[in-house]
């Protein structure tokens, strides 16, 4: 068992366990912390896939900014343990769990059987490249081929920022008299 394999299994289990705890924890703060854990392990998985830049962004944006947002909101609400963390309805609940299970089974089965079948085209193991090379390739691609999308994202973010402010302000705006 090489280090690669060990690292993969370690990260995979870590991701799954923390993801499960996001869903299962009744206290939202624990969920948030588990989510942060998941984000970090996903970032690590990115590293194993040699997407170094993305791993960084993942850490900064998700594990950093987004998680802070979540935690701040949670703090704002000051939530205790919920009495009813899960939706009511045993029947629909069963359907939901069953559906999710079947879906997972289907995908896993499909992916597994696909690889089994397509043995001939054995996955090309790309040559290891340095983090700088990979990042350079990404940025070139991003700014040469997808610059319009990139700019559009910028506009989107601006709109989102304005929209968020508009949504979360008090009724009547900042200057309104109550």
């Amino acid at each position, binding site marked *: *068992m090489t280090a690669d*394999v060990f690292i*993969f299994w370690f990260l*995979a289990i870590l*991701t799954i366990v923390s*993801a*499960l705890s*996001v*869903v299962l924890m009744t206290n*939202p703060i624990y*969920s*948030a912390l588990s*989510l942060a854990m*998941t*984000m970090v392990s*996903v970032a690590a*998985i*990115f590293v194993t*896939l*040699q*997407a170094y830049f*993305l791993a960084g*962004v993942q850490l900064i944006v*998700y594990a950093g900014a*987004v998680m802070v*947002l*979540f935690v701040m*909101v949670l703090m704002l*609400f000051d*939530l205790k343990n*919920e009495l*009813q*963390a*899960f*939706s009511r309805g045993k029947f629909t609940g069963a359907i*939901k*769990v069953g*559906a*999710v*299970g079947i*879906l*997972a089974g289907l*995908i*896993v089965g499909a*992916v*597994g059987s*696909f*690889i089994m079948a397509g043995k001939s085209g054995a*996955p090309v193991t*790309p040559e290891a490249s340095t983090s700088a090379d990979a990042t350079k390739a*990404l940025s070139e*691609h*991003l700014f040469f081929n997808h610059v319009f999308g990139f700019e559009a*994202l910028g506009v*989107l973010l601006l709109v*989102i*920022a304005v*929209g968020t402010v508009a*949504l*979360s302000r008090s009724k009547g705006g900042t200057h309104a008299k109550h």
Partner: protein
Amino acid sequence: MPSTSFLTDISINHYLILSAILFSIGMAGVLLRRNIIVLFMSIELMLNAVNISFVTFSHYFDKVDGQVMVFFVMTIAAAEAAVGLALAVSIFKRFKEVNIRFFEHLKG
């Protein structure tokens, strides 16, 4: 031996299966949890699962486009989280609750 090769040969399908499992967990969260914030977290999980797939494909097929897409997804995810949480705040202000059921009032 298939069993050992499954454990020792890490191939594209390992990553994809991981992604699928992560996605399913997120989905289960979306379907089952009532706290709207946890719901958003579950959505993040699903997005991350998708990201893993993208990066995996990008890595194994040696195409950078997948990573560009992940980049976009992250941005969208952040935006979505911002708006969603703003909505959650509004709901909380009105009902002092963050139960998803209060969103039913939006149906009109």
